[in-house]
């Protein structure tokens, strides 16, 4: 009871408080409203016939029998949809020289990956639509295919896009300093090639869409399980030629997204077209196998990198080549090169060095496209950097903590610009390193490791420092010509009963957007949180904005809400001042009551102000027009990104007989700036770490030589389940950004960013006594046994 009062002891202080999410009770009661639950009058169901070939010419399609089946309303091919939908191309202007083939909802004459949708059937039930698929005959003529990176780069090999000289989508080269010279004179050089398998989001709810075109009104309504409804409003409008204001996209509860649900998918575009052709609602929900072969995959990089150090272990230079294969074309509208671009720009980011050279080569192949998925590029950049740092430490006889402490950018050395041009406002690597060592009980873990080794138990300890990109400015997509917003908008109203309704453009996928926005509004206005209703995810209702991607919900959406609330508060207090014959500056709001700012004596409830303004405006002074609804937009300025940082640690055990790895405990110290809801931040970190651990140990989309995905089910593609996952210890450092009043940065990708790097370092640490090394992710038992020469 004797603890000093903090800012959280003020009434209605919600920023920094672990309050539960108001919307979670619905989900716990089975009252979620996911798109897959939706049923509309006269609704039909779509199913897609998919290509069994990875690369083939479509010679002929015969759908007569399918169309004749009772209950079938439409069978559509690429040509049918091409009549109403314009093609799209996944390139951005600022990626100079980037190429990709134009795409249509369904292909006209050629398939480019196994699993690509070729023909659509619309029927009275999904089952009937699937029956009809069985009755469609497609004649294919196999074309030479490209499956792996090396094959795709071979001169004279098959070229995926006709008319192209080769399979290169994009090349980038960074050169900062005198890299060759530094390497020639360095005391130590470490070098490694690390491969990263393809993995995918595996959201528990697959992609789902219900398109409902009403020809009588010329109005398209799309219920779409997406993170970015405004982006899709724009795309459906432009590609189907419907005025933007007559396209409405509604994203209610979403069963997981993680970046996967913000790309354009052929089936989704097709479903919109099918609804336009039929003038009826059409629903499509991917099944699990369809998800595996058509959702974007991610990663799939092979990075060769070397690091030069001086005799004392100071990092002098890095030299990097990143080869990444992205599938047969680049995803629209964000492109598939963003990941590689972020890899070469994030490598080395935590460290103080000047000489950096990197080449990125982005390559087409006959597989489903890769694109942005949680922590875009971060796990790769982090694993490459942190593995080299550990290799250097080992070579120099330094402890992993010591070499990092020696090389990270000092906490008092900001602002800083990285060798790749990223501008860091303020990071806290030193503080995080120190804190991680404490929460890990590092010295005890090392002592235990030594003891256990004597008994044939091989434990490993890995740490990994990371920098995360959050709060992207228009420099991210806007400059490339993509109509993807970096600003957000909020419309805030005081209701006649004195409550607040907040319509906001950032969207909710379970991370707690609605909770933190209501916390910010309640906090800033001086109201109990339960009197704030937040509404998201409906382009007809909520103002235009970027919505949720790249960790921008709290930092940009939260700041939008904060500024909007301050504007509403000013308006409320102006009316209150007129009624109370007082100066607005002498008044404040606490617990829904207008009070004297100085004495906190209650003057009147804001509900009374609302009542007067809405129903008895005749009693206000002449000329008064109460503005109890405010509309406010905010776009980030100042630094182009709000970078965050942190460090993770992992303790695991490798069974050298079986190759199995058991993660014993995972640790993270994270600095996301101002924390709005600690519980939600911790849950973002935990969930993110587990996604990273899945990538590190289990997850890989495996293809055959003929380009067939071999593990497209949850029995074959392993995801982290409760039994394999450890408890996760979390600590925080808070360095708010000065670019906003709120000071919040993002946190959603931090967990994923460094988890696989940590595991890679920990496994290599465990295998050190055997002189065996792992340089490939995921780290499967087979790879461990191969490294141990036991397989």
């Amino acid at each position, binding site marked *: 009871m004797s603890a000093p009062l903090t800012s959280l002891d003020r009434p209605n202080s919600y920023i920094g408080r672990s309050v*539960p*999410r108001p919307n*979670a*009770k*619905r*989900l*716990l*009661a*089975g*009252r*979620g409203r*996911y798109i*897959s*639950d939706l*049923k509309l009058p006269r609704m039909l169901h779509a199913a897609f016939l998919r290509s069994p070939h990875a690369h083939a010419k479509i010679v002929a399609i015969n759908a007569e*029998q399918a169309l004749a*089946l009772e209950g079938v309303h439409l069978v559509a091919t690429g040509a049918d949809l091409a009549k109403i939908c314009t093609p799209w191309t996944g390139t951005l202007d600022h990626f100079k020289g980037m190429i990709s083939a134009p795409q249509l909802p369904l292909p006209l004459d050629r398939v480019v990956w196994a699993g690509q949708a070729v023909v659509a059937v619309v029927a009275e039930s999904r*089952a*009937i639509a699937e*029956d009809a698929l*069985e*009755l*469609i*005959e497609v004649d294919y003529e196999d074309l030479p295919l490209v499956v792996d990176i090396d094959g795709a780069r071979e001169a004279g090999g098959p070229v995926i896009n006709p008319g192209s000289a080769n399979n290169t989508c994009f090349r980038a080269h960074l050169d900062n300093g005198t890299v060759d010279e530094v390497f020639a004179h360095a005391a130590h050089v470490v070098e490694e090639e690390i491969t990263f398998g393809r993995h995918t*989001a*595996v*959201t*528990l*709810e697959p992609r789902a869409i219900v398109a409902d075109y009403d020809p009588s009104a010329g109005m398209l309504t799309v219920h779409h399980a997406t993170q970015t409804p405004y982006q899709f409003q724009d795309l459906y409008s432009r590609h189907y030629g419907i005025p933007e204001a007559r396209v409405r996209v509604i994203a209610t*509860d*979403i*069963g*997981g*997204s*993680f970046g996967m649900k913000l790309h354009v998918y052929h089936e989704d575009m097709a479903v919109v077209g099918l609804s336009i052709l039929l003038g009826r609602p059409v629903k499509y929900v991917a*099944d*699990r196998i369809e998800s595996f072969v058509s959702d974007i995959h991610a990663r799939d990089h092979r990075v060769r990198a070397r690091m030069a150090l001086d005799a004392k272990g100071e990092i002098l230079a890095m030299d990097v080549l990143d080869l990444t294969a992205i599938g047969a074309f680049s995803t629209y509208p964000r492109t598939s090169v963003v990941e590689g671009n972020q890899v070469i720009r994030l490598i080395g980011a935590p460290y103080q060095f000047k000489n950096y050279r990197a080449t990125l080569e982005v390559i087409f192949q006959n597989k489903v496209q890769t694109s942005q998925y949680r922590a875009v590029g971060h796990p790769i950049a982090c694993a490459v950097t942190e593995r080299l740092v550990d290799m250097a430490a080992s070579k120099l006889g330094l402890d992993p903590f010591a070499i990092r402490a020696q090389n990270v950018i000092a906490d008092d050395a900001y602002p800083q610009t990285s060798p790749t041009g990223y501008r860091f406002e303020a990071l806290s690597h030193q503080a995080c390193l120190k804190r991680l060592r404490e929460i890990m009980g590092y010295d005890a873990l090392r002592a235990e490791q030594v003891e256990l080794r004597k008994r044939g138990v091989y434990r490993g300890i890995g740490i990994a420092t990371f920098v995360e990109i959050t709060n992207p400015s228009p420099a991210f997509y806007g400059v490339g010509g993509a109509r993807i917003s970096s600003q957000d908008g909020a419309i805030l109203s005081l209701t006649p009963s004195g409550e607040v309704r907040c319509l906001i453009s950032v969207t909710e*996928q*379970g*991370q*707690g957007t609605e909770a933190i926005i209501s916390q910010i509004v309640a906090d800033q206005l001086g109201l109990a949180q339960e009197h704030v209703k937040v509404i998201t995810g409906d382009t007809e209702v909520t103002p235009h904005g970027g919505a949720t991607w790249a960790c921008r919900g709290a930092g940009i959406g939260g700041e939008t809400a904060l500024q909007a609330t301050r504007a509403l508060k000013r308006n409320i207090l102006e009316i209150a001042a007129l009624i109370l014959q007082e100066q607005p500056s002498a008044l404040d709001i606490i617990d829904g009551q207008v009070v004297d700012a100085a004495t906190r004596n209650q003057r009147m409830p804001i509900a009374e102000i609302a009542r007067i303004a809405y129903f008895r405006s005749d009693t206000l002074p002449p000329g008064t027009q109460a503005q109890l609804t405010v509309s406010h937009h905010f776009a980030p300025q100042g630094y182009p990104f709000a970078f965050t940082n942190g460090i993770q640690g992992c303790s695991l055990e490798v069974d050298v007989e079986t190759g199995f790895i058991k993660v014993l405990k995972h640790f993270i110290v994270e600095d996301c700036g101002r924390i709005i809801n600690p*519980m*939600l931040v911790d*849950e973002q970190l*935990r*969930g*993110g*770490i*587990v996604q990273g651990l899945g990538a590190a140990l289990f997850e890989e989309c495996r293809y055959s030589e003929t380009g067939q995905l071999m593990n497209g*089910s*949850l*029995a074959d593609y392993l*995801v982290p*389940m*409760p*039994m394999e*996952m450890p*408890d*996760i210890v979390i600590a925080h450092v808070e360095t708010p950004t000065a670019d906003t009043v709120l000071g919040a940065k993002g946190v959603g990708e931090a*967990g994923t960013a460094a988890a696989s790097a940590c595991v890679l370092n920990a496994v290599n640490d465990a295998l050190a006594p055997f002189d065996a090394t792992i340089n490939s992710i995921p780290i499967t038992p087979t790879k461990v046994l191969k490294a141990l020469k036991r397989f």
Partner: protein
Amino acid sequence: MSGFDQTLLDDADETVRVQLTVNGRRVACEVAPRETLVDCLRNELELTGTHAGCEMGACGACLVQLDGRAVHSCLMFAVQADGATINTIEGLSETGVIADLQAEFHRRNALQCGFCTPGMLVNAHELLSQVAQPSREEIRDALSGNYCRCTGYEAIVDAIEAVAQARDQGGGTK
């Protein structure tokens, strides 16, 4: 596709009447023999709290209580459930039998997107009816067929552990 036997499709669509007791109410449905229980619950009975995640029994999103035990409704045909008593997340919520689990999940944010949550709750309910005081290891083991992509599981384990302790202290009457 010549030689395709149209009668196969006709048979597949010929419906059968099944009678169930769902969430305490007797209901009858006309279902096709190939229709799974999860599809029947979601489409015919509009009980959309039960979810289909993998449709092969790997993810646990479709768990319901059938004759008192947790079962995968995606691995059963609706016709197989004829005469059965089924409780879905909607029924378990309305009767209050899992109210303490739901409250603890809410308090600890043991859910994010919520898609796995009904299945998690059905499984947690099953576990606590079998083992009064499971260890964390036992909880993780019991949940090993429930996939959650969002949370990292720890909060879910914490919530179930806390409810087990509270029930124990309260006499385990829930």
